[in-house]
C-alpha cells in the first residue's frame, strides 16, 4: 500500500493523507481496506472488501469528523477486458461510490471488487436515499444485484430487455443485432410491458381507516405529454386531488452514450457530449475535455480557457432562458416563452458566428478550442451584453412579480437543505435551499478563479426560489462574459502539446515524421496513458462529471457520465408528495432538467 507522488498541490496531498489515515485507523489492520489507488484527478480512492462496505460507508457518512454527506455518484465498471490495471485488486466488476463532503470540499471514491460467483452487494438505500436509482441503473446495465433493494428492476432499458448493455460482451451497435421490427405481437408485448401496476411498486389501490374508505386514483402522465418537456413518464397516486406518491418511469431517452464512449476515440466523442444535455452545448464538453486533458497531462493556454468560459456562459444563459420560459409556461404564463426564445435566438446567432453550430457546437478540442475567435466577435458580444440587462428587468416584472405566478409557486415543492444534500441535488436546486455551492467558486476550473462574480442563493427551496436563483444567475453570467470581453488574453487558442487534438497544421509538412504524426493524430486520435480521471463542473443544471478510465488506447475503457438531471428527477416524488395535482407541473417545471441528461 503505497502512495505515489502526483501532480497535486501539497495542501491537497496533506488533506488526502489526513483522510486516508483516518480511514485506515477506522478499518484497523483486519485488511478490509485492500488498497489505495492513485488517480490522476487527486480524488482519494480506496478499495474496500465487500463485507466491510456498509460499515465503511456508514463511518464516513456519520462518524467521521466533517463527514461525507452526499452520495454524488454510484456506478460500476466491467473489468474483464482491462489490460493496464496497474496492480489494482480488480475482480470481474468494480462498483464505485463517489462521496462528497461539503465541510471538507473534498471527494472520496470507494471501490469494491466483485467476482463472477458473487455479483451482488448490500444496498445502501437506508444510508443515502438517492442510491435507489443508481443501484437500479447498475443492475440494469451490469446485472449486479443489490441485496435489500426493495424494487430492484430495470431502470433505463425496457423490462423485456435481454442482457446487460454496459457489460463488455453486450453489442454496442443496433446494426450488430439485426433490423428492428415491430410486428403486432411485439407491439402488444411492448405496450403491455408499459402497463402500470400499483402493486409492483408497493402502492395500495384503496385506503381504509376508521372514518374513511376510498379508492386511490392513478394518473399516468407521459411519455407523450406536453407538461413533461420530453419523454418522461410519471404515474401519480392521488387521493382526490392530493398527490400521495409518484412513480417516475425513465429510460425513454436512453441513447447509450456511455457505451458509445467506449467505441469512439477520445476526440470523436466530443460531439456526443453535446447531446448529453442538448440545451447547454459546450457546457457538456467542458468536463469531458478537462478530464481528457487531466489524463493526458495537457495544460490549456489562457486564451483557450477564456474562450471556453465565455462560450460556456453564453450557453448557460441560453439554457436558463429556455428553462425560464417553459417554467413560466407551465404555470400558465404563455407569453414569456416567446420573448425568451427570441433572446435565445440572439445568443445562438453569436454561437453560430463563433462555433458554426447552433445547438450542438462541437467546439472544444482536447487542449483548447477548434478555432480562434473570428474577427468581429467583440462587436456582437458587446451588443448583446449591453442590451440584455434591460430585458432581464422586463422579465423580472413580467414573470417574477406576477402575482399569479407567485401564488402558484411560493411554498410549493419545498425542498429542505438536508433533503437536497441527501438526495444529491446540485446547481440551482441546491442553491435555492440556501447553500452557496458553485463549483466555479469553490473548486475553480478553466480559469474561473480569475473572474469576479457572485453565487446567488435563495432560502426557501420552493419553486419560486429556484426561479429566483436562475434569474440572478443570468446576470452573473453576463458579468463573466463582460470580463471575458474586456480582457480576452492573447495567445494560442489550443495547446501545443503533442497529445492535443487535432494536431496543428503548421507543425506538419516538415518531414515524413511530422507528416505521419499529423496523419495519425487526425485519423486515429491520441493514445492516452493508462489512468483514471474525473472532473466535475458546474453546468447549467447542476454538477456534471465525467469519470474516464483509460486503458492506454485511443478509446476510453469506461466513461461514466454523472448528470444533475438524473438526480433531480429522482427527487420529484419527494417534492410533490402532499401537493395538489395541478402543482405537479409547477414542481416539474421548476426542476431544471432535460430528458437526455436524465437517461443519457
Amino acid at each position, binding site marked *: 500500500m503505497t502512495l505515489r507522488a502526483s501532480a497535486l498541490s501539497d495542501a491537497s496531498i496533506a488533506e488526502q493523507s489526513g483522510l486516508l489515515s483516518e480511514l485506515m485507523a477506522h478499518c484497523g489492520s483486519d485488511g478490509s481496506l485492500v488498497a489505495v489507488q492513485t488517480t490522476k484527478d487527486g480524488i482519494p480512492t480506496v478499495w474496500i472488501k465487500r463485507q466491510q462496505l456498509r460499515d465503511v460507508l456508514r463511518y464516513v457518512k456519520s462518524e467521521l469528523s466533517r463527514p461525507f454527506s452526499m452520495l454524488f455518484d454510484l456506478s460500476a465498471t466491467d473489468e474483464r477486458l482491462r489490460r493496464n490495471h496497474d496492480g489494482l485488486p480488480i475482480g470481474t466488476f468494480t462498483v464505485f461510490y463517489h462521496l462528497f463532503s461539503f465541510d471538507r470540499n473534498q471527494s472520496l471514491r470507494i471501490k469494491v471488487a466483485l467476482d463472477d460467483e458473487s455479483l451482488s452487494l448490500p444496498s445502501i438505500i437506508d444510508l443515502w436515499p438517492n442510491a435507489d436509482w443508481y443501484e437500479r441503473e447498475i443492475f440494469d446495465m451490469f446485472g449486479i444485484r443489490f441485496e435489500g433493494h426493495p424494487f430492484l428492476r430495470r431502470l433505463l432499458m425496457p423490462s423485456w430487455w435481454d442482457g446487460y448493455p454496459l457489460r463488455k460482451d453486450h*453489442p454496442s451497435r443496433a446494426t450488430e443485432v439485426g433490423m428492428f421490427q415491430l410486428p403486432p405481437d411485439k407491439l402488444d408485448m411492448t405496450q403491455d410491458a408499459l402497463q402500470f401496476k400499483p402493486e409492483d411498486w408497493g402502492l395500495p389501490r384503496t385506503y381504509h381507516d376508521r372514518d374513511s374508505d376510498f379508492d386511490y386514483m392513478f394518473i399516468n402522465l407521459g411519455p407523450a405529454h406536453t407538461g413533461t418537456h420530453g419523454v418522461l413518464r410519471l404515474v401519480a397516486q392521488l387521493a382526490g386531488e392530493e398527490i400521495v406518491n409518484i412513480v417516475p418511469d425513465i429510460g425513454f431517452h436512453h441513447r447509450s452514450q456511455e457505451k458509445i464512449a467506449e467505441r469512439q476515440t477520445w476526440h470523436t466523442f466530443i460531439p456526443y457530449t453535446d447531446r448529453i444535455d442538448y440545451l447547454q452545448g459546450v457546457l457538456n464538453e467542458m468536463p469531458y475535455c478537462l478530464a481528457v486533458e487531466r489524463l493526458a497531462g495537457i495544460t490549456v493556454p489562457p486564451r483557450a480557457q477564456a474562450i471556453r468560459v465565455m462560450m460556456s456562459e453564453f450557453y448557460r444563459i441560453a439554457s436558463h432562458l429556455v428553462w425560464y420560459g417553459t417554467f413560466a409556461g407551465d404555470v400558465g404564463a404563455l407569453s414569456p416563452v416567446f420573448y425568451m426564445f*427570441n433572446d435565445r435566438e440572439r445568443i445562438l446567432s453569436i454561437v453560430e458566428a463563433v462555433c458554426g453550430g447552433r445547438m450542438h457546437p462541437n467546439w472544444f478540442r482536447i487542449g483548447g478550442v477548434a*478555432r480562434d475567435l473570428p474577427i468581429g466577435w467583440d462587436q456582437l458580444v458587446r451588443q448583446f451584453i449591453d442590451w440584455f440587462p434591460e430585458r432581464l428587468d422586463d422579465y423580472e416584472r413580467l414573470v417574477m412579480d406576477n402575482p399569479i405566478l407567485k401564488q402558484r409557486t411560493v411554498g410549493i415543492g419545498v425542498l429542505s437543505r438536508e433533503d437536497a444534500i441527501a438526495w444529491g441535488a446540485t446547481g440551482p436546486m441546491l442553491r435555492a435551499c440556501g447553500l452557496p455551492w458553485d463549483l466555479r467558486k469553490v473548486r475553480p476550473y478553466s480559469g474561473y478563479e480569475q473572474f469576479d462574480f457572485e453565487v446567488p442563493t435563495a432560502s426557501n427551496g420552493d419553486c419560486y426560489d429556484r426561479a429566483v436563483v436562475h434569474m440572478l444567475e443570468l446576470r452573473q453570467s453576463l458579468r463573466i462574459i463582460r470580463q471575458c470581453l474586456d480582457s480576452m488574453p492573447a495567445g494560442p487558442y489550443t495547446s501545443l502539446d503533442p497529445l492535443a487534438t487535432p494536431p496543428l497544421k503548421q507543425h506538419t509538412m516538415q518531414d515524413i515524421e511530422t507528416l505521419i504524426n499529423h496523419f495519425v493524430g487526425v485519423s486515429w486520435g491520441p493514445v492516452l496513458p493508462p489512468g483514471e480521471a474525473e472532473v466535475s463542473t458546474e453546468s447549467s443544471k447542476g454538477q456534471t462529471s465525467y469519470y474516464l478510465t483509460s486503458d492506454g488506447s485511443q478509446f476510453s475503457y469506461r466513461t461514466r457520465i454523472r448528470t444533475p438531471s438524473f438526480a433531480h428527477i429522482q427527487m420529484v416524488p419527494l417534492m410533490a408528495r402532499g401537493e395538489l395535482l395541478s402543482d405537479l407541473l409547477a414542481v416539474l417545471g421548476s426542476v431544471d432538467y432535460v430528458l437526455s441528461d436524465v437517461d443519457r
Partner: protein
Amino acid sequence: MTEWRSGRLEGVRVTEGGDGPLTSVVGQSVLFAKLQDLLAWGRKNSLWPLNFGLSCCFVEMATSFTSVYDVARFGAEVARGSPRQADVLVVSGTVFLKVAPVIKQLYEQMLEPRWVISMGSCSNSGGMFDAYSVVQGVDKFIPVDVYMPGCPPPPHAFMECLLLLQSMVGSERRPLSVHFGPQDVQRPIMPSMRDAKRAERMGQREYPSIDVLPRTDLLSSHFAGQPGGRSKGKS
C-alpha cells in the same frame, strides 16, 4: 385548374367581369372551385402538428413556433396535445427502443388523413446513434412522407419541409364519398430535393469567410419582439 372569383389565393386567375360595385363585392366574397380542390386547399393550409417531441430536434421545432420564425404564417402553429386532433406527426429526435411502441400508438390514434415528417438524422436513420437502444430510423415501423436532414435541422429547414409537405398535401386528391369517384388517394410524386438543388449547389463558387464575421445587428427587427421591432413575414 382552379378558378376562384377572389384574388387572394395562389394559382388563381381573377376573372374580371362587369363594372359595377356589386360585381366587385360579390367577387370578394364568393368563390367557385371544385370541392376536391377546396378541400385539398383547406387541408394544406391547416396542417396541425401533434405536440410531441423526442429530443434535441424538438427544441428546434419548438423554436420555429416562436416569433422569429413563426410557422403561424403557414397555418401550422396549432400544436395539438391529442393525436386525434392532429394531422402531422413530426418525429423530432432519436427514436428510442423503449418509446417506439408509444410512437406507433400515437400514429395509430391519429385520424386519416395523416402525415409524418421525420425530423433530423436520428429519426431518418438513427444518425450518429447506432446504438443498442436506438431504432435506426422511424420508417422501420411507420411510413414517412418527408425526411428532413440535419442534426438538428435549423428552424428554416423545418419550415422548408413543412412547405414541401404542404405542396404535397395540396395536390393530393382524396375520395369525396364512398359512393362515387375513384376510391384511392392520388398522390403526387415528390421530387428528390437533392436532385432539384444539385445545379445550384454545384454552381456555388463563393463562400462566406469563417474568420471574419459579417456585420450583424442583433437588435434588428429580424429578432422580432422588442420595442420598435416589427413582426416578420406578414406580407
